[in-house]
Protein backbone atom coordinates (compact mmCIF):
# COMPACT_ATOMS: atom_id res chain seq x y z
CA UNK A 1 0.00 0.00 0.00
CA UNK A 2 1.34 3.44 -0.95
CA UNK A 3 1.96 6.12 1.57
CA UNK A 4 4.45 8.35 3.34
CA UNK A 5 7.85 6.67 3.87
CA UNK A 6 9.66 9.69 5.34
CA UNK A 7 8.88 13.23 6.46
CA UNK A 8 10.66 16.30 7.77
CA UNK A 9 9.93 19.88 8.77
CA UNK A 10 12.13 22.95 9.02
CA UNK A 11 11.28 26.10 10.96
CA UNK A 12 13.67 29.11 11.14
CA UNK A 13 14.66 30.20 14.65
CA UNK A 14 13.69 33.89 14.37
CA UNK A 15 10.36 35.07 15.78
CA UNK A 16 8.51 38.36 15.97
CA UNK A 17 5.65 39.01 18.35
CA UNK A 18 2.30 40.44 17.33
CA UNK A 19 2.85 43.34 19.78
CA UNK A 20 6.12 44.29 18.07
CA UNK A 21 4.39 44.64 14.69
CA UNK A 22 1.28 46.33 16.12
CA UNK A 23 3.42 48.91 17.89
CA UNK A 24 4.90 50.11 14.58
CA UNK A 25 1.54 50.50 12.84
CA UNK A 26 -0.48 51.84 15.75
CA UNK A 27 -2.66 48.74 15.68
CA UNK A 28 -4.44 47.14 18.62
CA UNK A 29 -2.37 44.09 19.51
CA UNK A 30 -4.86 42.49 21.94
CA UNK A 31 -7.57 42.44 19.31
CA UNK A 32 -5.26 40.69 16.80
CA UNK A 33 -4.23 38.21 19.45
CA UNK A 34 -7.81 37.49 20.45
CA UNK A 35 -9.47 37.90 17.04
CA UNK A 36 -6.95 35.88 15.03
CA UNK A 37 -5.50 33.83 17.93
CA UNK A 38 -1.93 34.78 16.97
CA UNK A 39 0.96 35.30 19.41
CA UNK A 40 4.08 35.38 17.26
CA UNK A 41 5.38 34.14 13.94
CA UNK A 42 8.57 32.68 12.47
CA UNK A 43 10.82 34.86 10.29
CA UNK A 44 13.46 33.57 7.87
CA UNK A 45 17.06 34.76 8.24
CA UNK A 46 18.40 36.72 5.25
CA UNK A 47 20.21 33.57 4.09
CA UNK A 48 17.08 31.42 4.16
CA UNK A 49 14.50 31.00 1.45
CA UNK A 50 12.15 28.36 0.06
CA UNK A 51 15.06 26.47 -1.46
CA UNK A 52 17.21 26.32 1.70
CA UNK A 53 14.30 25.33 3.96
CA UNK A 54 13.16 22.72 1.42
CA UNK A 55 16.65 21.20 1.36
CA UNK A 56 16.74 20.89 5.16
CA UNK A 57 13.20 19.47 5.37
CA UNK A 58 14.00 17.16 2.45
CA UNK A 59 17.18 15.90 4.11
CA UNK A 60 15.22 15.08 7.26
CA UNK A 61 12.64 13.21 5.17
CA UNK A 62 15.35 11.16 3.42
CA UNK A 63 17.00 10.45 6.78
CA UNK A 64 13.73 9.14 8.24
CA UNK A 65 12.95 7.12 5.11
CA UNK A 66 16.46 5.67 4.95
CA UNK A 67 16.34 5.45 1.15
CA UNK A 68 19.01 6.11 -1.48
CA UNK A 69 18.26 9.62 -2.87
CA UNK A 70 19.02 8.31 -6.36
CA UNK A 71 15.76 6.33 -6.14
CA UNK A 72 13.67 9.49 -5.79
CA UNK A 73 11.85 9.86 -9.11
CA UNK A 74 10.19 13.24 -8.55
CA UNK A 75 10.52 16.34 -6.39
CA UNK A 76 7.72 18.89 -6.41
CA UNK A 77 7.95 22.07 -4.37
CA UNK A 78 4.80 24.04 -3.75
CA UNK A 79 5.27 27.68 -2.77
CA UNK A 80 4.19 31.20 -3.50
CA UNK A 81 7.66 32.52 -2.68
CA UNK A 82 9.94 30.60 -5.03
CA UNK A 83 13.18 32.63 -5.03
CA UNK A 84 13.26 32.83 -8.82
CA UNK A 85 10.42 34.01 -11.06
CA UNK A 86 11.97 31.87 -13.78
CA UNK A 87 14.24 28.94 -12.82
CA UNK A 88 13.13 25.97 -10.79
CA UNK A 89 13.57 25.60 -7.03
CA UNK A 90 13.21 21.85 -7.37
CA UNK A 91 16.44 21.29 -9.27
CA UNK A 92 18.50 22.94 -6.52
CA UNK A 93 16.81 20.77 -3.91
CA UNK A 94 17.23 17.63 -6.04
CA UNK A 95 20.91 18.43 -6.55
CA UNK A 96 21.48 19.07 -2.84
CA UNK A 97 19.74 15.82 -1.89
CA UNK A 98 21.82 13.90 -4.44
CA UNK A 99 18.75 12.88 -6.43
CA UNK A 100 19.79 14.14 -9.90
CA UNK A 101 19.78 13.52 -12.84
CA UNK A 102 17.16 10.77 -13.34
CA UNK A 103 14.29 12.66 -11.76
CA UNK A 104 11.27 14.81 -12.58
CA UNK A 105 11.09 18.26 -10.96
CA UNK A 106 8.41 20.93 -11.02
CA UNK A 107 7.61 23.97 -8.95
CA UNK A 108 3.95 24.35 -8.04
CA UNK A 109 1.98 27.44 -7.21
CA UNK A 110 -1.58 27.53 -5.93
CA UNK A 111 -1.49 30.07 -3.10
CA UNK A 112 -1.36 28.12 0.18
CA UNK A 113 -2.35 24.80 -1.39
CA UNK A 114 0.80 24.32 -3.49
CA UNK A 115 2.44 22.02 -0.95
CA UNK A 116 -0.40 19.50 -0.77
CA UNK A 117 -0.50 19.54 -4.59
CA UNK A 118 3.06 18.24 -4.67
CA UNK A 119 2.10 15.55 -2.15
CA UNK A 120 -0.97 14.57 -4.17
CA UNK A 121 0.95 14.24 -7.44
CA UNK A 122 3.77 12.22 -5.83
CA UNK A 123 1.26 9.85 -4.28
CA UNK A 124 -0.45 9.48 -7.67
CA UNK A 125 2.81 8.74 -9.50
CA UNK A 126 3.82 6.15 -6.90
CA UNK A 127 0.41 4.49 -7.06
CA UNK A 128 0.63 4.45 -10.87
CA UNK A 129 3.98 2.73 -10.62
CA UNK A 130 5.75 5.46 -12.61
CA UNK A 131 8.25 6.28 -9.86
CA UNK A 132 9.60 4.41 -6.84
CA UNK A 133 9.72 7.41 -4.52
CA UNK A 134 8.45 10.96 -4.91
CA UNK A 135 8.96 13.98 -2.65
CA UNK A 136 6.27 16.61 -2.16
CA UNK A 137 7.35 19.77 -0.36
CA UNK A 138 5.34 22.72 0.91
CA UNK A 139 7.49 25.74 1.78
CA UNK A 140 7.08 29.48 2.00
CA UNK A 141 8.71 32.66 3.17
CA UNK A 142 5.30 34.26 3.05
CA UNK A 143 4.82 37.85 2.07
CA UNK A 144 2.62 40.22 3.98
CA UNK A 145 2.57 43.91 3.10
CA UNK A 146 3.83 46.23 5.84
CA UNK A 147 0.87 47.26 7.98
CA UNK A 148 -1.53 44.80 6.32
CA UNK A 149 -3.39 42.25 8.45
CA UNK A 150 -1.31 39.56 6.71
CA UNK A 151 1.88 40.95 8.20
CA UNK A 152 0.87 39.55 11.62
CA UNK A 153 0.67 36.00 10.28
CA UNK A 154 2.84 35.60 7.14
CA UNK A 155 5.70 33.37 8.30
CA UNK A 156 8.26 30.84 7.13
CA UNK A 157 8.67 27.09 7.23
CA UNK A 158 8.82 23.94 5.14
CA UNK A 159 7.60 20.35 5.26
CA UNK A 160 8.72 17.51 3.01
CA UNK A 161 7.06 14.12 2.51
CA UNK A 162 8.57 11.21 0.67
CA UNK A 163 5.98 8.85 -0.82
CA UNK A 164 6.62 5.24 -1.75
CA UNK A 165 5.29 1.76 -1.21
CA UNK A 166 7.85 0.02 0.94
CA UNK A 167 8.73 1.09 4.44
CA UNK A 168 5.51 3.09 4.67
CA UNK A 169 4.95 4.95 7.96
CA UNK A 170 1.47 6.24 7.07
CA UNK A 171 -0.69 4.80 4.30
CA UNK A 172 -2.75 7.09 2.08
CA UNK A 173 -6.24 5.64 2.35
CA UNK A 174 -8.09 8.26 0.33
CA UNK A 175 -7.72 11.67 -1.27
CA UNK A 176 -10.22 14.21 -2.46
CA UNK A 177 -9.74 17.59 -4.10
CA UNK A 178 -12.37 20.31 -4.29
CA UNK A 179 -12.00 23.56 -6.22
CA UNK A 180 -13.79 26.50 -7.82
CA UNK A 181 -12.68 29.84 -9.20
CA UNK A 182 -12.90 32.19 -6.22
CA UNK A 183 -10.69 35.33 -6.23
CA UNK A 184 -10.21 35.80 -2.47
CA UNK A 185 -6.44 36.42 -2.46
CA UNK A 186 -3.93 37.00 -5.24
CA UNK A 187 -0.62 38.55 -6.21
CA UNK A 188 -0.12 39.93 -9.70
CA UNK A 189 3.13 39.57 -11.68
CA UNK A 190 5.84 42.07 -10.53
CA UNK A 191 3.99 42.89 -7.29
CA UNK A 192 5.88 42.40 -4.03
CA UNK A 193 2.87 41.74 -1.82
CA UNK A 194 -0.42 39.88 -2.20
CA UNK A 195 -3.87 41.46 -1.91
CA UNK A 196 -6.97 39.88 -0.44
CA UNK A 197 -10.72 40.31 -0.25
CA UNK A 198 -10.92 40.90 3.50
CA UNK A 199 -13.93 39.07 4.96
CA UNK A 200 -14.57 37.53 1.53
CA UNK A 201 -11.65 35.19 2.32
CA UNK A 202 -13.80 33.49 5.00
CA UNK A 203 -17.16 31.86 4.25
CA UNK A 204 -17.16 31.71 0.42
CA UNK A 205 -13.47 30.89 0.26
CA UNK A 206 -11.72 29.11 3.17
CA UNK A 207 -14.75 27.48 4.75
CA UNK A 208 -16.59 26.50 1.57
CA UNK A 209 -13.56 24.66 0.13
CA UNK A 210 -12.09 23.24 3.32
CA UNK A 211 -15.43 21.88 4.47
CA UNK A 212 -16.32 20.81 0.91
CA UNK A 213 -13.20 18.68 0.55
CA UNK A 214 -13.46 17.29 4.09
CA UNK A 215 -17.13 16.31 3.76
CA UNK A 216 -16.50 14.66 0.39
CA UNK A 217 -13.59 12.55 1.66
CA UNK A 218 -15.54 11.52 4.75
CA UNK A 219 -18.46 10.47 2.58
CA UNK A 220 -16.12 8.65 0.18
CA UNK A 221 -14.53 6.66 3.02
CA UNK A 222 -17.64 6.29 5.16
CA UNK A 223 -15.74 7.76 8.13
CA UNK A 224 -16.77 10.38 10.68
CA UNK A 225 -14.76 12.67 12.93
CA UNK A 226 -14.72 10.13 15.75
CA UNK A 227 -12.89 7.61 13.50
CA UNK A 228 -9.84 9.89 13.52
CA UNK A 229 -7.25 10.39 16.23
CA UNK A 230 -5.91 13.59 14.60
CA UNK A 231 -6.91 16.27 12.11
CA UNK A 232 -5.10 19.27 10.69
CA UNK A 233 -6.47 22.01 8.46
CA UNK A 234 -4.94 24.91 6.63
CA UNK A 235 -4.24 27.51 9.30
CA UNK A 236 -4.14 31.11 8.04
CA UNK A 237 -4.89 32.23 11.63
CA UNK A 238 -5.72 30.48 14.86
CA UNK A 239 -9.46 30.72 14.53
CA UNK A 240 -10.31 29.33 11.10
CA UNK A 241 -8.96 25.77 11.50
CA UNK A 242 -10.53 25.36 14.95
CA UNK A 243 -13.89 26.50 13.62
CA UNK A 244 -13.68 24.26 10.55
CA UNK A 245 -12.78 21.32 12.77
CA UNK A 246 -15.63 22.02 15.17
CA UNK A 247 -18.19 22.22 12.33
CA UNK A 248 -16.99 18.79 11.15
CA UNK A 249 -17.31 17.35 14.64
CA UNK A 250 -13.64 17.29 15.74
CA UNK A 251 -12.82 18.24 19.30
CA UNK A 252 -9.91 20.37 20.42
CA UNK A 253 -7.90 17.37 21.55
CA UNK A 254 -7.91 15.97 17.99
CA UNK A 255 -6.92 19.33 16.51
CA UNK A 256 -4.37 20.67 18.96
CA UNK A 257 -1.26 18.72 18.00
CA UNK A 258 -1.29 19.96 14.38
CA UNK A 259 -2.52 23.45 15.30
CA UNK A 260 0.78 25.38 15.22
CA UNK A 261 -0.35 28.75 13.93
CA UNK A 262 -0.57 30.75 17.19
CA UNK A 263 3.22 30.61 17.59
CA UNK A 264 4.34 29.67 14.07
CA UNK A 265 2.16 32.00 12.01
CA UNK A 266 0.85 31.12 8.57
CA UNK A 267 3.51 29.32 6.59
CA UNK A 268 1.23 29.40 3.51
CA UNK A 269 2.14 26.34 1.40
CA UNK A 270 3.77 24.83 4.47
CA UNK A 271 0.84 25.30 6.85
CA UNK A 272 -1.21 22.07 6.94
CA UNK A 273 1.84 20.00 5.81
CA UNK A 274 3.88 21.22 8.81
CA UNK A 275 0.81 20.51 10.97
CA UNK A 276 0.91 16.94 9.65
CA UNK A 277 4.61 16.57 10.56
CA UNK A 278 3.84 17.63 14.14
CA UNK A 279 1.18 14.91 14.28
CA UNK A 280 3.47 12.23 12.79
CA UNK A 281 6.07 13.13 15.45
CA UNK A 282 3.73 11.79 18.16
CA UNK A 283 1.40 9.43 16.30
CA UNK A 284 0.97 5.79 17.33
CA UNK A 285 0.54 2.85 14.95
CA UNK A 286 -3.04 2.40 13.76
CA UNK A 287 -4.08 6.01 14.30
CA UNK A 288 -5.99 7.73 11.53
CA UNK A 289 -5.21 11.33 10.42
CA UNK A 290 -7.23 13.79 8.32
CA UNK A 291 -5.38 16.59 6.56
CA UNK A 292 -7.14 19.31 4.56
CA UNK A 293 -5.20 22.08 2.84
CA UNK A 294 -6.62 25.27 1.42
CA UNK A 295 -5.30 27.54 -1.32
CA UNK A 296 -6.88 30.80 -2.35
CA UNK A 297 -8.19 31.01 -5.80
CA UNK A 298 -9.49 28.52 -4.54
CA UNK A 299 -9.33 24.85 -3.58
CA UNK A 300 -8.62 22.20 -0.98
CA UNK A 301 -6.84 18.82 -1.06
CA UNK A 302 -7.93 16.31 1.57
CA UNK A 303 -6.01 13.17 2.63
CA UNK A 304 -6.81 10.32 4.97
CA UNK A 305 -3.73 8.58 6.41
CA UNK A 306 -3.36 5.56 8.68
CA UNK A 307 -0.15 5.33 10.70
CA UNK A 308 1.83 2.05 10.54
CA UNK A 309 4.09 0.23 13.00
CA UNK A 310 7.21 1.69 11.36
CA UNK A 311 6.40 5.19 12.64
CA UNK A 312 8.07 4.44 15.97
CA UNK A 313 11.36 3.67 14.23
CA UNK A 314 11.60 7.00 12.41
CA UNK A 315 10.20 9.66 14.74
CA UNK A 316 13.53 10.23 16.49
CA UNK A 317 15.74 10.13 13.40
CA UNK A 318 15.43 13.88 12.68
CA UNK A 319 14.43 17.05 14.57
CA UNK A 320 10.78 17.13 15.60
CA UNK A 321 8.49 19.95 14.59
CA UNK A 322 7.34 21.16 18.00
CA UNK A 323 10.92 21.09 19.28
CA UNK A 324 11.86 23.46 16.47
CA UNK A 325 8.84 25.60 17.26
CA UNK A 326 9.41 25.80 21.02
CA UNK A 327 13.20 25.82 21.45
CA UNK A 328 16.13 27.90 20.35
CA UNK A 329 14.02 30.94 19.48
CA UNK A 330 15.42 34.39 18.83
CA UNK A 331 13.08 37.40 19.00
CA UNK A 332 13.50 40.20 16.50
CA UNK A 333 12.64 43.85 16.78
CA UNK A 334 10.71 45.32 13.89
CA UNK A 335 13.78 47.10 12.43
CA UNK A 336 15.77 43.90 12.18
CA UNK A 337 12.70 42.05 10.89
CA UNK A 338 12.25 44.70 8.17
CA UNK A 339 15.91 44.30 7.18
CA UNK A 340 15.69 40.50 7.15
CA UNK A 341 12.58 40.62 4.95
CA UNK A 342 14.02 43.16 2.51
CA UNK A 343 11.48 45.80 3.44
CA UNK A 344 14.03 48.60 3.64
CA UNK A 345 14.71 50.64 0.53
CA UNK A 346 18.38 50.86 -0.34
CA UNK A 347 20.54 52.28 -3.11
CA UNK A 348 20.16 50.11 -6.20
CA UNK A 349 23.46 49.60 -7.96
Amino acid at each position, binding site marked *: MEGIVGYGAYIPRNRIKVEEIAKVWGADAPSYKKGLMLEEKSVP*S*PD*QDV*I*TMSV*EAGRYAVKRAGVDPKEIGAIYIGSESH*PYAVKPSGTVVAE*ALGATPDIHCADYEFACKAGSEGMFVCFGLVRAGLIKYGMGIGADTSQGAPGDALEYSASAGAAAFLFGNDGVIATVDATHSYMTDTPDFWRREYQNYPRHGGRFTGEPAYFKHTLGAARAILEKTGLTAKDFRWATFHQPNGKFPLRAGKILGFDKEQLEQGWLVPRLGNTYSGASPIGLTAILDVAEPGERILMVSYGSGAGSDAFVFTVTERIKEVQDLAPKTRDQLDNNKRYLEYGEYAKFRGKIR*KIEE
Partner: protein
Amino acid sequence: MLTPSKYWRESPQRYRLEAAKCTKCGKVFFPPRLVCDSCKNGEFEKTTLPDEGKIVSYSMIHVTASNFSDEAPIALGIIELDNGTKITAQVTDCTEDELAVGVPVKLEFRKVQEAGESGVLCYGYKAVLKR
Protein backbone atom coordinates in the same frame (compact mmCIF):
# COMPACT_ATOMS: atom_id res chain seq x y z
CA MET B 1 32.63 38.10 -10.00
CA LEU B 2 30.14 35.28 -9.73
CA THR B 3 29.07 34.09 -13.14
CA PRO B 4 26.66 31.14 -13.52
CA SER B 5 29.31 28.72 -14.81
CA LYS B 6 31.80 29.58 -12.08
CA TYR B 7 29.13 29.08 -9.43
CA TRP B 8 27.65 25.93 -10.94
CA ARG B 9 30.97 24.13 -11.32
CA GLU B 10 31.49 23.92 -7.55
CA SER B 11 27.96 22.83 -6.68
CA PRO B 12 28.75 19.16 -5.85
CA GLN B 13 31.03 20.45 -3.08
CA ARG B 14 28.83 23.32 -1.93
CA TYR B 15 25.53 21.43 -2.08
CA ARG B 16 26.56 17.94 -1.03
CA LEU B 17 30.01 18.29 0.56
CA GLU B 18 31.49 15.93 -2.01
CA ALA B 19 35.17 15.27 -1.42
CA ALA B 20 37.83 12.92 -2.80
CA LYS B 21 39.64 10.24 -0.83
CA CYS B 22 43.06 9.05 -1.99
CA THR B 23 42.79 5.34 -2.73
CA LYS B 24 46.38 4.81 -1.60
CA CYS B 25 46.91 6.79 1.60
CA GLY B 26 43.33 7.69 2.48
CA LYS B 27 43.83 11.46 2.68
CA VAL B 28 40.59 13.37 2.06
CA PHE B 29 40.56 16.44 -0.19
CA PHE B 30 37.88 19.11 -0.21
CA PRO B 31 37.44 20.17 -2.95
CA PRO B 32 38.58 17.10 -4.90
CA ARG B 33 41.90 17.34 -6.74
CA LEU B 34 43.83 15.37 -9.34
CA VAL B 35 46.91 14.37 -7.36
CA CYS B 36 47.44 13.55 -3.71
CA ASP B 37 49.93 15.93 -2.09
CA SER B 38 51.01 13.28 0.40
CA CYS B 39 51.66 10.18 -1.69
CA LYS B 40 51.38 11.59 -5.25
CA ASN B 41 48.74 9.01 -6.14
CA GLY B 42 46.28 10.08 -8.84
CA GLU B 43 43.34 7.85 -8.00
CA PHE B 44 40.53 8.89 -5.70
CA GLU B 45 37.16 7.64 -4.60
CA LYS B 46 34.20 9.92 -4.01
CA THR B 47 33.34 10.56 -0.39
CA THR B 48 31.03 12.91 1.50
CA LEU B 49 32.22 15.09 4.36
CA PRO B 50 30.45 14.76 7.70
CA ASP B 51 28.10 17.68 8.39
CA GLU B 52 29.13 18.14 12.01
CA GLY B 53 32.27 19.49 13.62
CA LYS B 54 33.66 22.21 15.85
CA ILE B 55 34.93 25.79 15.58
CA VAL B 56 38.74 26.02 15.31
CA SER B 57 38.78 29.81 15.02
CA TYR B 58 36.27 32.54 14.26
CA SER B 59 35.91 36.25 13.61
CA MET B 60 32.94 38.55 13.54
CA ILE B 61 33.63 40.51 10.35
CA HIS B 62 32.20 44.02 10.54
CA VAL B 63 33.72 45.38 7.32
CA THR B 64 32.66 42.84 4.70
CA ALA B 65 33.27 42.61 0.98
CA SER B 66 30.56 44.58 -0.83
CA ASN B 67 28.55 41.48 -1.80
CA PHE B 68 28.05 40.65 1.91
CA SER B 69 27.39 44.16 3.23
CA ASP B 70 23.62 43.63 3.60
CA GLU B 71 24.30 40.87 6.12
CA ALA B 72 27.08 42.58 8.09
CA PRO B 73 28.34 41.70 10.57
CA ILE B 74 28.99 38.12 9.48
CA ALA B 75 30.68 35.48 11.59
CA LEU B 76 33.37 33.59 9.70
CA GLY B 77 34.82 30.40 11.05
CA ILE B 78 37.28 27.65 10.31
CA ILE B 79 35.38 24.48 11.09
CA GLU B 80 37.06 21.15 11.74
CA LEU B 81 34.58 18.49 10.65
CA ASP B 82 34.32 15.19 12.50
CA ASN B 83 36.64 13.45 10.00
CA GLY B 84 39.36 16.07 10.59
CA THR B 85 38.87 18.02 7.34
CA LYS B 86 38.87 21.80 7.89
CA ILE B 87 36.71 24.20 5.90
CA THR B 88 36.00 27.93 5.95
CA ALA B 89 32.33 28.74 6.47
CA GLN B 90 30.09 31.38 7.91
CA VAL B 91 28.57 30.67 11.29
CA THR B 92 25.00 31.89 10.84
CA ASP B 93 22.06 32.64 13.14
CA CYS B 94 24.26 33.43 16.13
CA THR B 95 25.44 36.34 18.20
CA GLU B 96 29.05 37.19 18.96
CA ASP B 97 28.89 36.06 22.59
CA GLU B 98 27.81 32.55 21.57
CA LEU B 99 31.01 31.99 19.56
CA ALA B 100 34.03 30.27 21.03
CA VAL B 101 36.86 28.00 19.95
CA GLY B 102 35.76 24.38 20.30
CA VAL B 103 32.00 25.02 20.10
CA PRO B 104 30.18 22.19 18.26
CA VAL B 105 28.38 23.09 15.02
CA LYS B 106 26.48 21.43 12.21
CA LEU B 107 26.30 22.51 8.59
CA GLU B 108 23.07 23.70 7.03
CA PHE B 109 22.14 24.56 3.46
CA ARG B 110 21.90 28.35 3.13
CA LYS B 111 21.98 31.10 0.56
CA VAL B 112 25.58 32.32 0.65
CA GLN B 113 25.35 35.28 -1.69
CA GLU B 114 23.45 36.84 -4.57
CA ALA B 115 25.11 37.91 -7.81
CA GLY B 116 23.64 41.41 -7.60
CA GLU B 117 19.94 42.28 -7.70
CA SER B 118 19.20 40.23 -10.81
CA GLY B 119 21.99 37.63 -11.01
CA VAL B 120 22.02 34.01 -9.89
CA LEU B 121 21.34 33.07 -6.28
CA CYS B 122 24.30 31.23 -4.82
CA TYR B 123 23.81 28.52 -2.21
CA GLY B 124 26.14 26.43 -0.09
CA TYR B 125 27.01 25.41 3.45
CA LYS B 126 27.02 27.51 6.60
CA ALA B 127 27.55 26.37 10.16
CA VAL B 128 24.95 26.73 12.90
CA LEU B 129 25.59 26.16 16.57
CA LYS B 130 24.36 22.88 17.99
CA ARG B 131 22.08 23.99 20.80
